[in-house]
């Protein structure tokens, strides 16, 4: 064997890398020997991240103490969170960022179904969440992920059952948030979310479009193949206003064929959802089985799944489920949602490892979630000194709470929910502030905000003030049940009192998962004292002082990030 060959072979072995400058190597959950440029969160902060991601609420003080006392407890705590019923709601929230179905307005309005205005937001939310709840329930019922495109039922609440051709399979009072299994009564085939109204009310089509936009949505959402991201030259294509020439180009122009060769046959399978007119409840709310056979007529191509002939919607779900890209895409999707950043080529090995674990776990979503939350990327709390710039740029080590997390965490902590005219103010943009708070509206804003901004700061300021006012009134100025947060003081306690100090320490621990040092405590006491004195130094002033302190803690970056 030559020396050259030996040198090459030696280079092949993936020895632990010594990246220097503080990076360590890893051969664990992320798979392979790769330099790790991040350091993990400490136990309590990681418990906080896990709790917010998997339950939507802060960990209890006892849970924080558990992982503080024994760092190894974090995994069992995570496993408990994965069994929490609130996981389903969290999955809906995360999946909404990817599927973008939670719009403020659909082509059919609530009044088209004779629903009162006070139900408008509930109606819109219900439509957008139908496919999301379906997927979330597959996960929490430990069914294989493939069920999301093959199962013969959906999930629905009473509102959807009142307006769409659905039969609820259980009393809505028995389901989480009123959502229970439901079957369609309009003859649509078994295809999970692919046969859901909620998905296709978001991804609409037109006569000229002929379901192509929906086919592209399937390729993107189920295979992570975004045809809209492909480079296309329109130099040799006819003007889009020339419909006949455009249709011809779709079948003959190389650039067009690059996408349309597989998009059009897929679109051809979806004509049961092809409306004669838009904005009509019967055209959009009801599946039209008779139109299934129109696809080949309108598009002049037989239904197929990326080259494999299919009959139509009836076997589309099976085609998707058996495509090897489907599981890979599901893995990528969940990883990106929990990592709070896009998955890129540098993540290939990690995602492959996650995919293997997903497969080994019979495609149960909880297995995948556990594996993702084991990764260094998920657990990262900071980028180490000396990390390459692109790594520092890419890793999202301090993650802004989503509007949904803010809503549920603040409600759990203070009892306050920001609702106006029946609308969650952080869940819509008609009356509320969802995008201002960093969320997606599914239409104009499709990527969650990753860094604080001015409107975000204004929104969380108002949220913090209102929640603080609510919890102080509830906990200190009324006898309306057990306190949410201020459980160790009365309006008579003052800075320097043991109870006062303990209350402050307890709140910081619960809200931020950190122990405040003396300076921090002194600062909070000073804030309390200043407001107290400015407001007249009586019980009302004491309440105002507590409002200021709670509000400040809610606006603290340690509360607003995970």
């Amino acid at each position, binding site marked *: 064997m030559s020396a050259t060959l030996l040198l090459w072979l030696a280079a092949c072995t993936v020895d632990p890398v010594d990246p220097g400058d503080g990076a360590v190597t890893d051969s664990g959950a992320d798979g392979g020997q790769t330099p790790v440029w991040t350091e993990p969160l400490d136990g309590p902060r990681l418990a906080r991240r896990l709790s917010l991601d998997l339950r939507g609420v802060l960990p209890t003080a006892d849970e924080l103490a558990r992982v503080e006392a024994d760092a190894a407890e974090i995994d069992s705590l995570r496993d408990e969170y994965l069994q929490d019923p609130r996981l389903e709601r969290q999955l809906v929230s995360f999946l909404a960022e990817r599927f973008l179905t939670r719009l403020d307005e659909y082509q059919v309005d609530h009044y088209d179904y004779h629903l009162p205005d006070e139900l408008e937001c509930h109606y819109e939310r219900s439509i957008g969440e139908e496919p999301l709840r379906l997927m979330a329930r597959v996960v929490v019922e430990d069914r294989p992920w493939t069920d999301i495109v093959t199962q013969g039922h959906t999930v629905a609440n009473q509102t959807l059952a009142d307006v769409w051709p659905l039969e609820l399979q259980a009393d809505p009072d028995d389901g989480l948030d009123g959502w229970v299994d439901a079957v369609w009564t309009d003859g649509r085939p078994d295809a999970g979310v692919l046969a859901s109204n909620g998905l296709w009310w978001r991804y609409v089509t037109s006569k000229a479009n002929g379901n192509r936009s929906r086919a592209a949505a399937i390729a993107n959402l189920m295979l992570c193949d975004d045809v809209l991201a492909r480079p296309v030259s329109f130099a040799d294509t006819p003007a889009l206003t020339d419909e006949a020439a455009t249709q011809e180009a779709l079948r003959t122009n190389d650039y067009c064929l690059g996408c349309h060769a597989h998009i059009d046959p897929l679109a051809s399978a979806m004509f049961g959802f092809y409306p004669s007119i838009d904005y009509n409840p019967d*055209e959009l709310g009801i599946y039209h089985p008779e*139109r299934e056979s129109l696809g080949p007529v309108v598009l002049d191509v037989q239904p197929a799944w990326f080259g494999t002939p299919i009959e139509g919607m009836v076997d589309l779900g099976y085609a998707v489920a058996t495509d090897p890209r489907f*599981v890979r895409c599901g893995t990528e999707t969940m990883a990106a949602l929990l990592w709070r950043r896009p998955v890129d080529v540098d993540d290939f090995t990690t995602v492959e490892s996650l995919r293997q674990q997903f497969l080994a776990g019979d495609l149960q979503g909880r297995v995948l979630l556990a594996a993702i939350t084991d990764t260094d990327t998920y657990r990262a709390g900071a980028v180490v000194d000396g990390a390459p710039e692109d790594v520092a740029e890419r890793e999202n080590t301090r993650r802004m709470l989503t509007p949904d997390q803010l809503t549920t965490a603040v409600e759990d902590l203070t009892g306050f929910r920001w609702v106006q005219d029946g609308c969650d103010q952080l869940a819509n943009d008609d009356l509320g502030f969802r995008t201002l708070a960093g969320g997606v509206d599914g239409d104009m804003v499709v990527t969650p905000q990753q860094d604080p901004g001015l409107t975000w700061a204004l929104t969380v300021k108002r949220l913090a003030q209102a929640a603080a006012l609510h919890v102080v009134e509830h906990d200190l100025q009324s006898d309306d049940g057990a306190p949410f947060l201020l459980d160790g003081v009365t309006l008579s306690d003052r800075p320097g009192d043991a109870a006062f100090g303990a209350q402050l320490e307890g709140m910081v621990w619960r809200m931020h998962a950190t122990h405040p040092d003396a300076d921090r405590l002194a600062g909070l006491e000073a804030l309390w004292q200043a407001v107290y004195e400015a407001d007249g130094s009586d019980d009302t002033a004491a309440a105002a002082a507590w409002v200021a302190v709670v509000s400040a803690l809610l606006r603290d970056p340690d509360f607003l990030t995970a």
Partner: protein
Amino acid sequence: MSSPSPALLLALLACTGTTAPAGDDTGAAATADSGDPGPRYTVDDPGLQLQWTAEERSDRIADALTAGLPDPFRVMNELSGLYGAGDEFCPGAENAMGEGAILGCTASTGTFYLGIGTIQFHEGDSPDGFEISLYMMGDMEIVTAEGERAAVGGHWTTFKHDRMDGAAIFEMLFEGSWSWEGSTTPWYRDGMSGWLDIIGERETRESTPDLWVDGVVGVGDQYIAFYGLQWNETCPDLPTGGVGVRDPSGHWYRVDLPEDCSSPCGPLMVGDELIEDEICLPMDVVHDLASYITGWREER
């Protein structure tokens, strides 16, 4: 630099790291160094699970084909009555729903109107004969005081021209969803949905009319497709073309009739799969229904 030796090339090809993501068709990945194919998953192939048994198939397909075809003039008559059940403000126009009903209104009669809709009917002499045109469209809902609902989402165009010399043409294009719970006509009461084109042409009063039926129609839970059915001088009694009927499982039966229009029978297929060597369809009933709509028959 000299070219690398074959041994070196082999070594380099093997140099892909510890785990090679070599996915196969089942989504499994292989571990390159061990040959372990890695975990796999399977999805049950639903296959072809038809719901209609062989015994009931023939009757069910015949039932679907004879369930009815959408007749625009019958619908026009019933819809006119519904538009007329309001008052001068709601829906505010004769044979139409306009401004007053866009956001919904309840007439003094108790009938509720929501949306827009119109019926435009014309009949009269033309320079060389007689014309009938009917255009109906709607994105609307009407609920009577008794709680019976009518709804339209689509449009419907009908044109007929009878020339004095006996020649005539007829065309009807039906699209969308149309229903009226109070209708006395089963196919309208159960709701019709579809995309259907019927064209008729006659050269003389004595000649056999050409008739072409193409498109899809759903009536209640019966779904039919007509693949270019055509009757003409050469094929006056039995058509060419094909017919599809949907099994409740979601699969479509298809029968392509002989090109020489010698028989109302053909092989029954689902996709590429032969289900029965031959099934015979009541094409005379379909012909009668379509002829009735074109007005070639005088029973209307």
